[in-house]
């Protein structure tokens, strides 16, 4: 493996951040510029939203279930088993729903975007597009960013709902809790701030997933091996950033909504 000097590594990192920032800013700026690729956006929304639905539903359901299972063990010691719904609800809506949906979409779609755009890059299709007078950031990046932001928002709501349903299934079938009590606890414990936190996060995560996937795709080089590398890097970067941004967003929003 080739060793890179720390200075070169730092320079490359700063350059990558600069290029990603420029691409991300352009992808948002393009929303207000002509031409707008509405049909491409709808196609991406279908690929990202409908395509990710099964994994988001399953992830939400089983995470909610395991949350209820683990929470019950602790709550039982204090005789508060009835608060299971409350714990599942807060955890899913505020943290796990957005994060897990974001990670699932990152794994599925950031990699898809990086490999698709990366293949186009190494086969000169991106240059051909530019040569034909089309701005790839408008045609390829903005539709993906817009579609991911919108669809991740709804996928998070679905993930939250199926998380609560998973928790309910365990509470009902395993813990024999009262259904009305579970849902009432889960609903009553949620405050306006919790819902706001849970719904702002997917907007940020969607933006990160799409811009990172597109950035790695558009900057990939070195043939098929380069495309593979770009795909891996996109998933790793998007996943780490989702977790980091999740922490700082929680901190900030909890402070602001206190």
């Amino acid at each position, binding site marked *: 493996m080739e060793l890179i000097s720390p200075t070169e590594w730092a320079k490359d990192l700063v350059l990558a951040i600069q290029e990603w920032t420029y691409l991300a800013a352009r992808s948002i700026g393009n929303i207000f510029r002509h031409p707008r690729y509405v049909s491409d956006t709808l196609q991406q929304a279908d690929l990202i939203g409908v395509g990710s639905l099964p994994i988001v539903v399953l992830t939400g359901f089983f995470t909610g279930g395991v949350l209820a299972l683990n929470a019950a063990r602790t709550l039982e010691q204090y005789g508060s088993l009835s608060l299971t719904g409350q714990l599942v609800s807060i955890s899913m809506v505020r943290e796990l729903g957005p994060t897990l949906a974001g990670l699932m979409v990152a794994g599925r779609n950031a990699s898809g975007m990086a490999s698709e755009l990366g293949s186009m890059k190494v*086969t*000169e*299709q991106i*240059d*051909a597009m*530019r*040569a*034909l*007078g*089309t701005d790839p950031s408008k045609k390829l990046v903005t539709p993906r960013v817009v579609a991911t932001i919108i669809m991740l928002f709804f996928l998070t709501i679905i993930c939250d709902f199926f998380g609560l349903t998973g928790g309910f299934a365990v509470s009902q079938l395993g813990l024999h809790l009262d259904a009305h009590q579970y849902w009432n606890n889960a609903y009553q414990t949620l405050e306006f701030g919790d819902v706001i936190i849970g719904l702002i996060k997917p907007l940020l995560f969607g933006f990160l997933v799409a811009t990172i996937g597109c950035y790695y795709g558009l900057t990939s080089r070195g043939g098929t091996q380069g495309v593979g590398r770009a795909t891996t890097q996109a998933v790793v970067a998007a996943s780490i950033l989702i977790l980091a941004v999740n922490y700082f967003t929680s901190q900030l929003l909890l402070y602001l909504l206190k």
Partner: protein
Amino acid sequence: MPAPVAPAESPARTTDGQPQSAIVFEQVSISFEGNMVLDGISFSLERGETKALLGVAGSGKSTILKLTMGLVKPDHGNIWVLGQEVSAMKEEDLFELRRKLGMVFQESALFDSLTVRDNVAYRLIEEGVPEDKIQKRVEEALRFVELEHTLNMYPGELSGGMRRRVAIARAIVDQPEILLYDSPTGGLDPVTSTTIIELIVKQRDVYHTSSLLVSHRLQDAFTMATHYFDRGKNRMVPVNGAPIDTRTSFLVLRDGKVIFDGSAHELGTSRDEYIREYIS
């Protein structure tokens, strides 16, 4: 209101304000990762002229085409295309100019998820041309390259030669003012190569499009210089002393510099040792 600023030291213009040359390179240099690829090269391509760019692999021929398109920016020097200084233009402003240019990429660069019809129609669809006109122009372009029957096929279903012909159809569908061919015969068998060269000659002689052609095959460039397209016979025929100017010149690159810029005859009679070895 401030008066519009004219481009500084722009190339010579005709009386109606149009630049005389289709493409002008002035002292253009570019390097990639510390390697100097082009080192202060200057040349011009006149309107209606075809210039074959020759040189060994890595001599910067394809880079010249990408610089012309504004796909890469030079480190130094100025490039004018159709009177506009592409080396000083922003990416957003270049898209309009690029619509007047056509480019055939080395590996065709067809969009593999689109059919042949949608590949050829790409530019027209983007410009919002009505569907009936798109169909007519796509069929015309595909008829020009004799591939009308591939309309609904995908690039992956075509042979290498067919893909190059579709790439030519895509480049000419909007009748651009300048065509850039990047090794259009690279990796093809001699028969298919001759078919491609015939199409390029046909485009040159029927539509008088200015073009830059990168080629590794010297015989292709010489064929272009010594043949013209006979519309009556609908094929390429040798000039054979007829008073026909094929308007084809040669530019030879070596170590990032232009070592020859002239006609086929001048190239053939050059005394430069490297050129003699190159063309032998």
